[in-house]
């Protein structure tokens, strides 16, 4: 037994030496010097209910990296994206345990200097402490739970003290409450039933919405929690029907959201229904489809960009490259990648060592012009802009039913407190 193992190891060593020699040989031929490579992680749930949205986020960052490489790299550095899937088949959606494993893999590779992701706050809560230990920054283009960057919870999420979790979107501390304002001021909702999907994001968002709603005089007729693996929500919807509130607010992502929308369409078709950025995307739209999604309100924790002229070139390039229509979080992801690329350039130009700590410091002091405007962060990693956009699903029969830009109508910026 031992003998075999030894010889196998010897073989591995030989193979590895050979491979390295080959790689070095080819490295010399390519445009980049072999040592001028930096890796950037991308961690989003590519398996499960949110795969469609996650792929759009991944592609946004990929486009930025490919554009940088096409221009000859960043100050001589070639960018190598390292993509890890935060979703698992067992969870059927994002899986915090997998996110932690992926983060450990990233920090164990010294060439990885930063990360784009995660999409989901549940993953973010698992990743942040590991990143803090490694002093490696991540920029999330989509996760909005405020706890992770809350200085009061720094001991839990950044035990080393420095901010490592940066965002190119705002948090649920604004997304939830501003939607409550919208419900009250624009939709004249007087009573609401609040649901969440038992995930870190969903619970936090629903709580933030509920607290604000209560404060501005919307009656909370009930609060319950959906199990995202459960198929049947008729029970809770029947209960809601019996309580007849004006509206339902759902904090959560697509896995439970899709089933909720389908069954709500049958049981409480006329009730006002709304949620956050977890249902603002292709996964929710194509999973539930029309007529079930008709009328649902959703928000994004950032400005609406895909239809703005500033992003026109990005949208065109994205379509040409991936044959898909990007969503707003493809753009926040592209922006996150731009911030990291700018940090790499800054570190390279300053002559400092190209390592995680220096990249993190450069990101912290970012002042980068991106598609959504100038991105800069406060000392906790949160973006300074606090815009929340409101959308509504309205069937536009002149476009394909899964064309998100056509079917999800941008309404307005949510009223801020």
């Amino acid at each position, binding site marked *: 037994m031992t003998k075999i193992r030894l010889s196998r190891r010897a073989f591995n060593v030989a193979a590895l030496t050979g491979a390295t020699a080959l790689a070095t040989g080819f490295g010399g031929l390519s445009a980049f010097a072999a040592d001028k490579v930096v890796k950037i992680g991308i961690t989003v749930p590519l*398996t*499960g*209910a949110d*795969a*469609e949205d996650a792929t759009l986020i991944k592609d946004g960052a990929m486009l930025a990296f490919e554009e940088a490489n096409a221009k000859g790299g960043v100050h001589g550095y070639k960018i190598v994206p390292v993509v890890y899937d935060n*979703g698992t*088949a067992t969870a*059927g959606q994002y899986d915090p345990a997998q996110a932690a494993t992926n983060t450990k893999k990233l920090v164990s590779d010294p060439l990885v200097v930063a990360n784009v992701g995660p999409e989901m706050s549940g993953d973010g809560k698992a990743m942040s402490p590991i990143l803090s230990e490694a002093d490696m920054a991540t920029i999330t283009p989509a996760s909005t739970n405020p706890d992770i960057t809350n200085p009061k919870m720094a001991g839990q999420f950044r035990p080393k003290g420095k901010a490592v979790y940066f965002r190119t979107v705002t948090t649920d501390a604004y997304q939830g409450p501003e939607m409550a304002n919208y419900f009250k001021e624009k939709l004249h909702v007087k009573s609401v039933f609040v649901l969440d999907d*038992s995930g870190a994001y969903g619970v936090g968002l629903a709580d933030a919405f509920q607290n604000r709603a209560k404060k501005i005089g919307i009656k909370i007729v009930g609060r*319950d*929690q*959906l*199990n995202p*693996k*459960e*198929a*049947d*929500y*008729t*029970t*809770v919807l*029947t*209960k809601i*029907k*019996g309580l*007849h509130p004006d509206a339902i607010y759902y904090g959560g992502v*697509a*896995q439970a959201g*899709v*089933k909720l929308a*389908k*069954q709500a369409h*049958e049981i409480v078709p006329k009730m006002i229904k709304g949620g956050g950025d977890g249902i603002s995307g292709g*996964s929710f739209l*194509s*999973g*539930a*489809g029309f007529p*079930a999604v008709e009328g649902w309100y959703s928000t994004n924790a950032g400005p609406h960009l895909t239809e703005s002229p500033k992003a026109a070139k990005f949208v065109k390039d994205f379509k040409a490259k991936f044959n898909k229509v990007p969503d707003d979080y493809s753009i926040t992801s592209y922006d996150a990648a731009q911030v990291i690329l700018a940090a790499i350039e800054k570190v390279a130009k300053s002559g400092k060592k190209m390592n995680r700590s220096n990249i993190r410091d450069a990101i912290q002091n970012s002042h980068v012009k991106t598609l959504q405007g100038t991105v800069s962060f406060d000392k906790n990693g949160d973006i300074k802009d606090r815009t929340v956009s409101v959308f509504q699903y309205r069937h536009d029969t002149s476009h394909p039913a899964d064309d998100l830009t056509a079917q999800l109508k941008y309404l307005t910026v949510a009223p801020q407190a």
Partner: protein
Amino acid sequence: MTAWDVFLQQVINGVSLGAMYSLLALGFTMVYGIIELINFAHFNVFMMGSFFALWALQAMGFVGQSHILYGLPLAGVLLLALLATMLGSGVLGVAIERFTLRPLRGVRGTAPMITTIGLSFILYNIILLGAGADSKNYANPLPNTAWMISGGATLRLREVLLWVVSLLLMLGLHYFVRFTKMGKAMQATAQDQEAARMVGIDVDKVVVITFFLGSALAGAAGLIFGLYYNYTSYIIGYQAGLRAFTAAVLGGIGNIPGAMLGGVIIGLIESLGGQYIAVRWTDVIIFSLLVLVLVFRPTGLIGRAAPTRS
């Protein structure tokens, strides 16, 4: 809706859920009754059944709610889809028995049960890789017909359909087991395999038939699930399977009427518990009940219908 209407509506919801759990529980109970094996692959035979049905409906040209049918054409399409699904799932069940469980028959200990857990993962991953992880919009030719009863509560066509199909299948199974020659052979095998073999019963054949029937019923449950929720996904087997397994234990595993009763009880607990306590406690209530039954009435509410082994 008055309080009474809400209660009535939740009973309708609960019985519908229960009918589905019952169909699924029958597969567990029959296999356990014959070869004393808890077949965890059954979870995902059900899941695959819902995909077989989806593909059958798609092959007939149904995508989403694009064509709505009424009357005889509807009955014809559903019957065809039901037959295709039951056949597909039945054959899958037989293949599982023949290629993975028969070689292990007679092996003591937990090896066969562990094998079924492994199989469950294989089926799950086949669909995950083959059909993708997103939730599928179900092909649905059913009209959204609903009847108002007692003021606020409504009874939908799909609920009626679910009840009728489940009831017919369960009655058919009951008749088959009680009155046909093969059914009697099944009962004999359940009582004593050795003795059944001695009197000339082909035990292998009985086991194959059992797997076929149990899996076909799971397939039927899969079709009903898809039509009822308008949705399927590779992940549906776990929750429904676990509840159905609880239903089988609750009614007395190995006992066919027990499985039906157990399913309906679990369905009602789920809907009424959700209404009067909270949905987030549903699993706690159901599985506490499972523990209580296992502690105080290990043979289930009805107990084993077949005479005890010698």
